[in-house]
């Protein structure tokens, strides 16, 4: 089939297609698109789990797993704002995505801290397990499942694979929303 496609592609440069070729012309192409789509995703994606949800982050994004750092809690802040860590001289806010998204928080002792971004733009999450390279071969979901409002604007696509929902999240947008949300909602009593 691929050979046939190559041939037609070659012919395309030089001659008009034969009627048969013209009729079958788009079939192989459609299959190709699928592979191309997954190829781009398979190329560079890290996946990490927070509770029941999976999140994807491109490998070009600066991120690191942090171990053995004390999280310093703050008074008078939202419950999802776990506190601050001292990451090489920068104060990095730690967010509990599970609480933020309305799930019950799991035991933090079993969790890892995962920071995205560098310097003063870094933000950290509690994650379950370690991030893994993910190869997404399925097509993106046509319709996203109902998401917590805070995630709605930041999720650009979703995939369902290995019984796990994975979301492509625009983290910069999420952090900005959190910053705004924070000042807007302010503290919970």
């Amino acid at each position, binding site marked *: 089939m691929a050979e046939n496609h190559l041939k037609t592609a070659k012919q395309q440069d030089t001659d008009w297609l034969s009627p048969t070729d013209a009729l079958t012309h788009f079939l192989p192409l459609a299959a190709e698109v699928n592979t191309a789509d997954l190829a781009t995703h398979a190329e560079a994606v890290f996946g990490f789990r927070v509770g029941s949800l999976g999140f994807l982050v491109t490998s070009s994004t600066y991120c690191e797993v942090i171990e053995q750092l004390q999280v310093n809690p703050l008074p008078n802040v939202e419950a999802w704002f776990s*506190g601050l860590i001292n990451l090489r001289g920068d*104060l990095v806010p730690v967010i509990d995505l599970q609480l933020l998204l309305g799930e019950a928080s799991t035991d933090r002792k079993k969790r890892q801290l995962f920071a995205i971004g560098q310097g003063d733009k870094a*933000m950290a999450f509690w994650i379950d397990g370690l991030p893994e390279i993910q190869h997404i071969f399925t097509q993106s979901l046509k319709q996203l499942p109902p998401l917590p409002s805070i995630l709605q604007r930041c999720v650009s696509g979703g995939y369902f694979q290995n019984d796990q929902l994975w979301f492509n999240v625009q983290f910069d947008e999420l952090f900005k929303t959190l910053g705004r949300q924070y000042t807007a909602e302010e503290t919970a009593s």
Partner: protein
Amino acid sequence: MIQQSNNSETLEELELGLHLLREFKTSQNKTHDNGIFIEPPATESSVEDYIDAFKNLANQAALNECYSDLYDACLLIEDVLRQLSPDEFAVARVNLFSSLNDWSLSSSEIIECAEVDNETATTHQDSALPLTLITDYITTIEQLAELVNKEGYSGLYSLNLLIIDTLHELSQSTIAVTTDLPSLLDNWCRECNAYRQNSLDAIDNIISILRHPDLNLPFDEDDFTTFNTLLVEEIGSQDNVEQAVDTVFDNTPDELDTLTTVADDDNDIAEPLSAMAQELVELLDTEAGLINYRFLAISFDEPVDSRKEHLQLASEELDRLTNAATMVGFAGLAATCTQVNANIALYLQHIDSFRLTNHELLIQWISEVKAYLLAFSKNGAGKQLLAQMSNPNWIQRLTPEASANLLPLMQVKGLNDESAETDSRETVATDANISLALPDDVNKELLDLLLQELPVYMQQFSEAIQRLQSGNGSSKDIDVAQRIAHTIKGSANTVGIKGIAVLTHQIEDILMACAKARKQPNAALMNTLINASDCLEAMCESLLGLGEPPNDARETLQEVLDWANEIAKNGIQDTPDFIKPTTSSANTTVAQHREPDSSQSPKETTTEPTESAQVAMVRVPTNQIENLFKLSSESIILNGQIYERQRRLKNQLQAMEAQFTLLQQLGAELEQLIDLKDLSGRSLVNTGKDFDALEMDQYNELHTASRRMVEASVDAREISVDMKKELDTMNEVLEYQQRLVINTQEAVMQTRFVPVGSISLRLQRGLRQTCRLTGKQGELKLTGEELLIDGDTLSALVEPLMHLLRNAIDHGLEPEEERVAVGKPLVGQIAIEFDREGNSILVRCRDDGRGLDFPAIRQTAQQNGHFKVGEAITEDELKQLILRPNFSTRSQSTQTSGRGVGMDVVNFQVLSLGGSLSLHSVWGQGLTVELRIPLPLSRSHALLANAGPYKVAISSKGLTQILYSGAGDIKIISNEQVLIIGDDIYPVVKLEDLLRVNDRRKEERYHGAILLVQNADKITAVLVDAITDSREVVIKSLGYYMRKIHGFVGATILGDGSITPVLDIPELLRAPRPAKTSHTAIEEETQYFSSLQTILVVDDSLSQRRALEQILTDAGFRVHTARDGIEAVEWLAHSKPLVVVTDLEMPRMNGLELASHIRTQERLKTLPIIMITSRSTEKHRLMADEAGIDFYLVKPVQDDNLLTKIQSLIDKQHSTVEA
């Protein structure tokens, strides 16, 4: 034989005579025209004719005693001619003819003559002829050499000299000259002329002539190649000296011109225009274009006043064109301009008589002028222009006689460059003259130096100008300003920034004239100088990347040029108000800088900046400073950690010391016990007589060991004491290091500090602009300008201060007549004082207007339903009301203020800066607005405390006193806890409650400390469990995303590495209730303002966007910008601005398409749109009209004009909504 010898002698005498004649002619040519002219006889004329000719020549020579040589020569020749036989005469005739021809012919004809001679020589083969011929050629080539040298062909000049030398040698040698030589030399002259016409072919011919064996030049092939290269390069570089050649042509004697291609008399343009002349004509054309623009701006749809204004502007431009035309030498054009201006003056007197036909006539006229400028040198140039001016529709038309007189003046054959050079005052400001563009090959070092010097110079310059303007100035200030203008001009010229160089050059001229005449500039000139100073300041800011180039640069330069030309023409006049050449009838806005302190002599104030100017400066990128700052903060934190470790070590040492003491005691006890045992043992066991009882212990091992242990414990204690001393020393070192790192951080911080005075010029500009718009007069006085504060805070202060200024003028100051009636000075006094108060900056804006109108505020509040009629309300409560959004007592919305954006917006801005605002008003005397803005904290002294499970640092912000428990009585009055200390009663609040930390303890806790904290006007007692420590902490931000958390200044890293928040207690006290409400309120306010006040600016040019943004922001609007129509449409999908200001030409979607799109949207279709473009044609205007543009403004747009247009659109919008 005798006959022969006689014959030979006669011929020799003739030769001598002719030689003398030529020599005389040559020497005369070099100096001046000798005024002698004869008609030479034809070559075939008889000897008598020749004798007559020479007689004639001799007679003319006899008239001048300087010509005695000529006279002698003529007599000699005459004598010889009488003795010649017909044959001899026939031989000599050609030579005679040639000699006489010298007196009537030009150089080219000399060559022709030489050719005739040559022919004769060939025919007659006479040995006497070549010598004369060579001399003739030498003369010709000498002239040629001189010419090419003048033209800058130095290579060709050298070659000509070479030929001349060779010819001299030949003339002296006995070698017979071959017959080829004359034609060779003729070719030489011809090729040289061809070369001068930039013909490359001529080079080969020149070289081949040089190779000719007759010349016998001692050169080899290499030399000829070198000559060739030299000539080729020379031709290439000649483009650069074309202008010089033109000048030479003008001044070259006629006979030299004949060596060049003879100009055809029938040609329209005798010689090409020089670059300078071309530029002057272009200048006239530009000016004509401006007039055309002014004429086109006249619309009969607009009111009479507007027509009159445009006509007035056109008349002024016409004056400029007249001046420029006179200067450049277009006397005819200047006369027609005067004529047209006389017509305009009549129209202005009777504006009603100015009809459409008159308007068309003006437009026709200016297009004729433009056509004339394209062909001013042609025969019949200006005929059509004059014909147009004879049109009977002109009120004052040109009479046929006048036209006939003007016609010769219209045809300008040559432009007198010299006069233009000597009097090259510019008259029209062009875009090139205000350009701040850096040349491509800019010298970076020079530019850096200029950028360092400029702010210092500008400060001194504007101070000098403002002193002059305030009336406190002296001639010294004129000198200072002139000197600075001169220095800036020089530097700007060196770097190549034309905009600054041209403006300072003109300012320098004006100031120099003032200094020379020993007169101070009058009020009108002073206004221009102030504007020029503002403009220079803005240019300087723009170069430093702190702002956009000034919009009014061209107008300002034009104003300055007009003054400079006026002064150059008429000098400084005695009358205090000599006619101002511009019309801008701007109100005189008085702006004044801080008066020098009484303790400080004026001399000191002027010399101070000069000293600071001498300090070497370095420009460093901001991020590098930030990095340094971060590193210094890390050092402080690290130092704190070491300090902490050291403290723990000391505590452990103390514990160890206690242990050693204990050990020592135990040792002593043990020793005692052993002693007792020994004693008892001795009583029980007799050990013999050999030892004394006291010596027994020497043999007791137990005793020895206990003794040693006691000694060791004493030693250990000694060591621990030494260690403690060491630790104390280490403590001192650490403390010293801490001070050092703190100093380092402060030094780094100071690099970000700027003097408050750096915004004073912007404030003064803002004041002047508002004065112009409101028609009121105000004087701004600033104090505390020397105060240094953080640059970011200062920038953030500009906007609220601008608001306050606008409010003070618009709402505060009474109209002039009212001020006069109550005995106030005509000019409103506004003062802005800057002061430092702790870690805050205190700004007081005071005006001497009418103050707050409390009855009006009360009435408005009642109308708006803020309280019921008859309800008691204090003035303090009313003051709080005007700080609420959209509260304005003004019934009519004005551009400057009164849009409901007054104190409320200032208050909002101040609150968002973490500051506070308070109002102090006395009716009839004025209002003082006091702003207190906290400076950013990077380090603070903090108290460490516990709040429930959290460890917190309490910053010293607002902290007035720390009391320990029991310092006062805590009682409950009307269900509220209060602290009573003496006569003072303070409300009480617990830190845990402020932080909403759950208190699980049921019993009332014991509070170890009470903090008295000032918040706005009130002091609150904050109860804290215990203060565990007090120290200097470094405040760090919570990152880019979590910038501001309510109640926290930031967080700090403690010595043990843990992070603790640094609390802002006053902020927590301001919003003690669930913050949600207050923040939602602020959010609502933000949304309210942003939706109501935003103006959308759409332009693809970044500089234009920024410039508009600044103008509109300074005028109190919020601005959203978009790069093109698409971006604008995307934003408009969810927002609705007040007005859209758009450019015409933009990528993706242009302004017309954007306007059409907006008009099709139901929600947006009434949105006012202003288009700002450089397209001024009717076609574009028409297209804009069709697209639904409300106002079409052509660049450059005056700020005031734009703001007025925006205001009128807003008013229109409001009236439509109300209707």
